[in-house]
Structures are given as structure tokens and as C-alpha cells.
């Protein structure tokens, strides 16, 4: 997993609420057995018409946002299916950070496993960043994970909260499995006692 330290980039505004994982990556692209290559189909049905041509007024098709690395989104981003293809597609497109008032639980978790930083902020701050993002290339936003701050294009600083363990893993690009396997003996001790208590499991 790539580290996430500091990112300065263009933010794309997507004010729609309840953007679900079927919108992020429609199911016909879940048939892959790989993690890569999904970026071209990110938001496929919003981005392309039935003949595969780009829909000009979809935000990521506009010249100003084609290289966006941040999405500022409406409430409850990432609801729906558990597909990790959603963060894989975002990442493959080049999105490293999503900002919203709220995220669906599974999607939120999945982001951290893939080096994407999801940031939850109060409504007024998301609204302000949304407005900033509307200004396209003129508005580069900086996200600094170490100091937990977002700097808007006018220099305003916004603080965000994040779970310390997740921050640590993201900053260092740490793999969960390796971390957990360090505790293997604790797991095995638990397993033995548990099996004795509940032999039917």
C-alpha cells in the first residue's frame, strides 16, 4: 500500500447525496480478478453514454477536473455494496482523498486498506470546500495527514479527526495482515480456550 502523507491537488465537487458503490463502479466491472485497471470505468454510467462517449457535463470529464485527486462529496458517500472495487477504481483513477459529512462504514474501512484518506467534516466545512472545489483548477486543496489539516485555496485551515491507528498505518503504508500476524500467538491462545468452551464452533 502506498503511504499517504501530504497531498496538494484539484478537488472535484460531487454534491449529490448517497453516491453508492454501484455508481462508483457498476457491477459489470466487478468481473475482474485483479485490483488494477478499474480507473477507466470509475463512475462509468455517469461518465459515459450508452455508446461509450464521454458525457461532457459530468464533473470528471470537464477539462478542469480530469486530473482531480480529491473528491468533495454529498452526504453518505459510498453506501451500498461492500465491493472494494470502489476504492480500487478511485485509486486507479488517481483519487487519494474523499471529503464528505459521512461515509458508509464498509466503504470507509476499505479506503484505509488502499491508501485513500476519507475525511469526515461538519456540514458547513464540507459546503465551504465544495464551493472552493467548484472553482476547478484555480482551487488547489492541500491535505496534510500528519498535522490533520486541510488548507483551502484561500489559505483557510480546517482541522480533521482521524483514528490514530489508521493514521499511523496510512502514514507508513503498513499492511494490516503483517501487523496482525505479529500477534499470532495471542490469536492461537484465544483460539484454544475458545474451542474448549465452544466445541461446536
Amino acid at each position, binding site marked *: 500500500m502506498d503511504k499517504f502523507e501530504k497531498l496538494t491537488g484539484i478537488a472535484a465537487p460531487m454534491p449529490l447525496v448517497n453516491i453508492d458503490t454501484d455508481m462508483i463502479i457498476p457491477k459489470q466491472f466487478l468481473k475482474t480478478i485483479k485490483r488494477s485497471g478499474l480507473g477507466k470505468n470509475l463512475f462509468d*454510467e455517469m461518465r459515459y453514454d450508452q455508446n461509450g462517449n464521454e458525457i461532457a457535463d459530468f464533473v470528471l470529464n470537464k477539462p478542469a477536473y480530469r486530473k482531480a485527486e480529491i473528491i468533495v462529496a454529498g452526504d453518505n458517500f459510498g453506501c451500498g455494496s461492500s465491493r472494494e472495487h470502489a476504492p480500487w477504481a478511485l485509486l486507479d483513477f488517481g483519487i487519494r482523498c474523499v471529503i464528505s459529512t459521512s461515509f458508509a462504514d464498509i466503504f470507509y474501512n476499505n479506503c484505509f486498506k488502499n491508501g485513500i484518506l476519507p475525511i469526515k467534516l461538519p456540514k458547513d466545512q464540507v459546503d465551504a470546500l465544495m464551493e472552493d472545489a467548484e472553482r476547478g483548477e484555480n482551487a488547489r486543496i492541500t491535505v496534510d495527514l500528519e498535522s490533520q489539516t486541510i488548507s483551502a485555496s484561500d489559505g483557510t485551515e480546517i482541522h480533521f479527526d482521524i*483514528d490514530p*491507528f489508521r493514521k499511523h498505518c496510512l502514514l507508513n503504508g503498513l499492511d494490516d495482515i503483517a501487523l496482525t500476524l505479529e500477534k499470532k500467538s495471542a490469536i492461537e491462545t484465544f483460539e484454544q480456550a475458545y474451542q474448549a468452551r465452544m466445541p461446536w464452533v
Partner: protein
Amino acid sequence: MTAPQKTGPKTLYDKIWDAHVAHQDADGTCLLYIDRHLVHEVTSPQAFEGLRMAGRPVHAPDKTIAVPDHNVPTTLDRANGIENEESRIQVEALDKNARDFGVVYYPVDDIRQGIVHIVGPEQGWTLPGMTVVCGDSHTATHGAFGALAHGIGTSEVEHVLATQTLIQKKSKNMKVEITGQLQPGVTAKDITLAVIGATGTAGGTGHVIEYCGEAIRSLSMEGRMTVCNMAIEGGARAGIIAPDETTFEYVTGRPHAPKGATWEMAEAYWRTLFTDEGAEFDKVLTLRAEDIAPVVTWGTSPEDVLPITAVVPNPDDFEGGKVEAVSRSLDYMGLKPGTPLTEIPVDTVFIGSCTNGRIEDLRAAAAILKGRKIKEGMRVMIVPGSGLVREQAEAEGLADIFRDAGADWRLAGCSMCLAMNPDQLAPQERCASTSNRNFESRQGRGGRTHLVSPAMAAAAAVTGRLTDVREMM
């Protein structure tokens, strides 16, 4: 470090959580031990690949159960193989991974194959008090047994395969109580949709919902699975129902349920799985069963729920970001505000999925279809949730009722619930569906989905429009 256990009265969720904490860090992050890991072909290939690359084995292959369901064709001739190349590769990858890593496996040609959330309970893999995970959001279904069951992403699938644990922080407790008794024609599906209508799709976010109350207690296991199945549509991490006699009766004699003295021991433990008097919930919702009518969804979010007697709403009735979302969804759905829901014609009916693909669902549909014909020109697909459900429906004569009515009676799989297989809606095709998601293009690009109960779906099949099933009872 061992886990500090919650003292004082506990909720059912607290109890199951405490029993499974294998390790706890100072910040409250836990390694939660996983009792059952269910696996399907869509969300697992990258996880098995990760294990291969790191040279890691599956920690507990006998607790890992794999079955292909999303991509499998449901036509009677599917033994001829899967035509779509990518689908075939995904199913073949699961075949190979299951064999290479030695996990329990039900291949496509096994009579026990079916939707993973139907197969688990049916085979007795899902038991009260367990932790159950799967790379699939509808894992919440298994909560009907008093198990803590939730969906995980593919990285977590790999984590569970490698360690039999999951890194977790505890969720909050939410109680959803349904008091009283359901009216005739109202089902578990209507309860679960009504709850989402009341809370919204984010109402349960960060919470585990315990469903309780007289109406829930009166449901069969099939009905309880329907209720828990859609906990995720309300944003909850999991839905859970305390086990009782109904649960024990369902579990008894299942292939992987405990037997003899071990059963006695298990049952004694299961009887301790309830929320203690005085335990606190972070959030509470109470609905009266008498107030719940047969419902349908009109939009493209499961929270877009109304009683069948209502009319299509107006975007102006809503607030904030929802105004735009509602205009967009009415546009997508091709609906005009003010239209009575019962005047909406449908082209297609889909009865199946992990929400409503069990025997009781098929019985409910058959009760309406018996002695009736589906409306001419309608496409009606009835898809059992597993090979065993199909076998039982044949034995009970339900299959004959479906065939006589003119419906298409198929083999087990996810089918038109998500259209990863050939069963799909065409653009603008309108479907009354017993599945769980009405998102844009969920059932096929441009397809329009109205979520309903199996009885309501069967009624629509007869009339060719959304219909109040109570008129046909």
C-alpha cells in the same frame, strides 16, 4: 493485552462481541475472532491472490465456506458452462482457490449450491452467538440467528483468510422494536423497508441494530433473515435478533449443527444470548406493526419507501441534497409526482435473491399465483435461493403453480438481483423485484426497480402493475 469486558447489563451485541475479542489494543482496536467466513467468487480472487503472493495459508479452512452465486447462469441448461468469459474466469478462479487452499466448497453442479447467505444457514454453518463475515454487504442476513454478521471488503477477506480475525472497533447499539402484530398481507419485507423508510439509508451508520418486539418474535427464521438482510440498506453494520425456540427448531438437524451432548452444551449457551434488562442503546426506533402497510419503493434509494396506497412524491416535499436526488431519481424512474403507485405498470417481475429467495417466500408467491395466470407479455422470473430450496419447492408443488401461471422457474443463484449474470433488465424496463437494492442500473443498465415483498411481486405479475396484494387475498 486481554479485553476489559463491559460490566453491568449488556446488549446481545455486547455479549457476542465480548466473547470474540482475541486481543485488544490500548486505543480500543480489537482483533475479533471470526467463526465463519463465507466466500463467493466476486470479492475473493484478489484476496486469494494476495495470500499466494505472500506465501500465506488459510488459517482455518474448515471455517471457510465458498460457493459461486453472483455470476452463475440460472437457466436450466447451465451445465453447458458459462458463456461470458469474465464470469467464467471468476467462477473458475473460485474453483481453483477453493481446491488449492482446501476450504469447504459447493460448486455450481452441487445440489447445495445457491446464494451464499441462503446456503450458510441452510447447511447449519450459521449458528447463534457466532461471528460471521463475508465479502458481501448482505452478510447481515445471518444476524437472524443471533449471530454478529457483517460484510467486509476484499482486503479484509484476505485478512480473515490469513488470520481468522478482523481488526475492529466496536459499533454502537441501536434498538429497533416492532410492537404488536402485522396485518394480513404485510410481511417481513415490509417491516424492513418500513424501517429504512423511517431511518433513511444512513440512519443505522456506525450501529449494530437489534430487532425486537412482538412482531419480530412472531416471524419465522425466513422472515427474520429478510429483516436482517436489509439492515445494511439502513446503513447499519449488522442486524441481529436474539435466538429463541424458533431459531433452535430451525437449526436442529442441519448438517453442520451440533448434535447430542454438544448440542445440549450449545443450546445452554445460546439461551444466554439476549439483551439484559436495563442495557442501554445509543439509539432507539419503535414502530407499531399495525401501522405498517405493504410498501414499495418509488425511487433509486431503498429509503424511497411508501405504502402501496400512496402516490409518487414531489421533489419539493424534500429538503437539502435530497431535493436534487429525488428529481434525479424520478427522472431515472420515469415517474411523475402525484401518480398513484398502483397505476405504475411493470414489465418484469423478479422473485428471488438473498432477501426473498427462501421456501417461505416462494410459498407466499405461490399462494397468490395459484389458479391465476401472469399477465400476457410479462416476464416473470422466479429464482430459488439454493438448489435445496428448488428441490423443496418442486416437492411441495410450488414449482407446478409457477409453471402453470406462466412464470419462468429457474436454477439457484443471485440472478437478477444484480445482473452480473445474463439475467438483466433492458434500459427503461420496469421491474417489481423482491431483491434489496433499487440503485440506478442495479438490475441492468437503465433498468427501473421497485422493491416489494414476494406476495406483492406475485400480485404485480398477475395484474401487470404495482398492486396492493390485499385486494387479491
